[in-house]
């Protein structure tokens, strides 16, 4: 199982490239309300994380994910 911190770090890196203008945002950041991701962006982020950690993340569970920390915990549980 990979660590929570590793998951957070990977998500932060991906978001820095796509939505945060290169900066690392805190784990409590809300993906949609604060970082401005559209639902399609979130799904593409999930796809990248699935490939990075070789896991399968059902999109039905996206409704429970609001922050980077939420997503990191979900991904961690799948590894």
């Amino acid at each position, binding site marked *: 199982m990979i660590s929570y911190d590793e998951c957070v770090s990977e998500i932060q890196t991906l978001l820095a490239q796509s939505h945060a203008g290169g900066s690392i945002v805190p784990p409590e950041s809300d993906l949609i309300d604060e970082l401005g991701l559209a639902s399609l962006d979130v799904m593409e982020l999930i*796809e990248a994380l699935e*490939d990075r950690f070789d896991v399968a993340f059902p999109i039905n569970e996206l409704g429970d994910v609001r922050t980077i920390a939420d997503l990191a915990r979900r991904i961690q549980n799948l590894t």
Partner: protein
Amino acid sequence: MSLLQKLDAARDFQDQLGQLGVNAIGATIDVTGSATEGRIEGKRVILAGTNNYLGLTFDPACIEAAAQAVRTHGTGTTGSRLANGTYAGHAALERELSAFLGTRSAIAFTTGYVANVGAISTLAGPGDVIMLDADSHASIYEGAKLSGAEIYRFRHNDPADLDKRLRRLGDRCARTLVIVESLYSMLGDVAPLDQFCEVVKRHGAFLLLDDAHSFGIMGETGRGLAETLGIEDEIDFVTGTFSKSLGSVGGFFASRKHDVAPLRSQIRAYMFTASSTPSVIASTRAALKRVAQGQALRSQLWKNCERVHEGLTSLGFKLGAAPSPVIASLMDSPEQAAAAWQALLDAGVYVNLVVPPGAPKNLSLLRCSLSAAHTDEQVEQIIEGYAAVAQRLFDQPRAAATAYA
């Protein structure tokens, strides 16, 4: 947040569209007597955004069949298929469709959207898995969501990505329904269906093909992309629509490998909605006969597609895919797309304006759909319309474009 704040958000979205300065969403088309011409805001236009691929909406045999049916059987069935809404015509259409497709059975639905929602939400359920192409139509997403199955996406038209994701599922592949479309409606790109079949088979999963856009226009007899590739027997389930090449409204669910008929008593979208009106069923049956003998129509359609694709490419438009009845021109921004759409309309050509989130990858585009009913003269007028757009939008003439989205 109150319940009604959602209305404000919807209004904001409408306002944003309004700020583009065009009335693309609410454009009212007055169609009189032709599959390819109409009036918008009083102006005569060539219709090049209607999905009327074979032009059968004004086929004399289809019109006569519908007119006779409405006189004989009335304007509506006033009931669902399982109650009082199955007439002899509904059953006949299903038999004829099944014979045409070579399937064990076929179920007709009131719309193509309902066919997808009903079929998908019934085939898969809690504990099952649905693996869908990322660019799937909204009806596929809705059906998947309603099913209660776990849903995963794979990258659009990417068999290697599907392969990777099925591998991650392991033994669960036996409970997995993979869903792809044949021809994608926004960019006009065609799925590598033979490769998808190979991947799905190797993992022991099941494949559902939504053939809404290639049905009637591909294959020697119009049975779609799978007929072209000679792989119809490899596909577990197929859904489709009557509202594109068949020129009416409705949808179907069928299979060569499995008998889907027993699912009639399980599919809620079949059981609890009104059945198609007799006139719709009658014109659809007449159109199906035209499709089966429609090689000349298909030849004309593809000739038109090649010509417009070539014309737009040489004008410098970056297009979404290789020639197909959907030719999407990629614009730099929603504002540019809106201006181009209006310029085309001013030039007498109606196409579809697509702005985010309507198309994949947040693209803004002009979506032209061609018809076998477009005359050579109309095809040239469509290209001339795009030439007027190019002149208005591009600072300088562009070299012929080659890359696809």
